[in-house]
């Protein structure tokens, strides 16, 4: 399969990319690793008039560790994240994205800007209460994870803006667990659950649970979080909290799973992820 024809430009800087996007009009698109966009172009679900390739924009690379947070350049590839044991949950999740070939090309900024409900990283950003930085013709702004994802493949990054950086709190002292269920090793998550737990003497001080593919956007399992906070981190309380993980969700059924099955998976995977996160 071969995509429709398009014009192609290589940006030399973020500002250059913003200018090229503005010139290219409404059908211009940014190209990072291309592992979400190129497959869509091959299927002709996407047919941009202009691709602005970011591969030479070195200011978008690299991970800065400062005090209690990570600032991750948007072009940071999943393969770089998977090697960062100090990044905890993010590294554990990155290891489970697709396969090594995809992790070698796909980028964190591309994945978040694409906003695929079945992708692994959006729910991690949400669970961590992270944010992204975007820059456009009108300057720079920061978007909190809770305000980023609007719907299927839709984010609040405006057309003409470039997602430049991902900010994640280090969450030192939190245990973490990631559970992903799919039919084939390299597939998207049928359902995925990220859990972060802060324990003090076996009692839950704080907990964050991110749900992948349980709706049009990533979600927090707020009812389960509220049920566990302040409770002992034993099997009984974890199971009671996990039983609430699918509350207020209305996932769409698809080829792989009915809505009911996805909700069942969310409860089971939440229990497993919380158990792992509590043991850490």
């Amino acid at each position, binding site marked *: 399969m*071969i995509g429709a024809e398009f014009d192609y430009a290589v940006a030399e800087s973020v500002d250059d990319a913003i200018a090229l996007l503005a010139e290219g009009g409404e059908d211009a698109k940014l190209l990072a690793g*291309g592992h979400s966009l190129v497959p869509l172009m091959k299927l002709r679900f996407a047919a941009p008039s202009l*691709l602005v390739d970011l*591969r030479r924009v070195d200011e978008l690379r690299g991970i800065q560790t400062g005090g209690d947070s990570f600032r991750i350049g948007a072009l940071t590839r999943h*393969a770089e994240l998977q090697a960062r044991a100090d990044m905890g949950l993010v590294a554990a999740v990155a290891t489970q994205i697709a396969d090594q*070939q995809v992790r070698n090309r796909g980028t964190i900024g591309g994945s978040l800007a694409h906003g695929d409900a079945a992708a692994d990283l959006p729910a991690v950003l949400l669970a961590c209460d992270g944010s992204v930085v975007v820059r456009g013709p009108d300057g720079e702004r920061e978007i909190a994870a809770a305000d980023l994802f609007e719907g299927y493949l839709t984010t609040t990054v405006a057309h003409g803006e470039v997602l430049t950086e991902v900010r994640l709190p280090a969450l030192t002292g939190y245990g973490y667990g990631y559970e992903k269920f799919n039919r084939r*090793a390299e597939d998207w998550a049928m359902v995925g659950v990220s859990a972060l737990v802060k324990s003090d003497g076996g009692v839950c001080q704080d907990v964050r649970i991110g749900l992948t593919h349980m709706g049009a956007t990533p979600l927090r399992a707020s009812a389960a979080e509220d049920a566990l906070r302040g409770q002992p981190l034993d099997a009984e309380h974890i199971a009671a909290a996990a039983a609430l993980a699918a509350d207020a969700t209305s996932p769409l059924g698809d080829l792989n799973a009915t809505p009911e099955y996805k909700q069942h998976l969310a409860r089971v995977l939440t229990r497993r992820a919380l158990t792992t996160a509590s043991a850490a």
Partner: protein
Amino acid sequence: MGATVALQVTVNGESHDSEVPARMLLVHYLRDELGLTGTHVGCDTSNCGACTCLVDGESAKSCTVLAVQCDGAQITTIEGMAGPDGELHALQEGFWAEHGLQCGYCTPGMIMAAADLLERRTADGPISEQEVRKGLEGNLCRCTGYHNIVKAVQAAAEASREVAA
């Protein structure tokens, strides 16, 4: 619209300057422009891994990469794995010795993905079956000959360890 783009790549040590359509995929550039047909098109949807080659030393599914994204890159295909005198790469030896192929269609992609796996590995000691299976999760063998593929990669890893020791 759709004008050609200048592209310079080094493939298996040889530099090429080309003018390609921006929408040309790397796998088609390798096969149709350079005649390197060892890189196969399997599923054409970045699932099967038959089109895997190395871009700047890291495995990539060349059906999901635009050729123009590789401007300035070093690319290695299966044709570049053997030595200049025809001496087989340790992975090729391993696949031969352990009968790591049946129809052979997935083999180039398997070998290139395994090359990334062994290069990326930091642990000492023999590579486990589980490590190989995880490392090759992006490559499908429709003959389902995975058992011998795993053994072939383990044999290659062991041979490389002996050489290094």
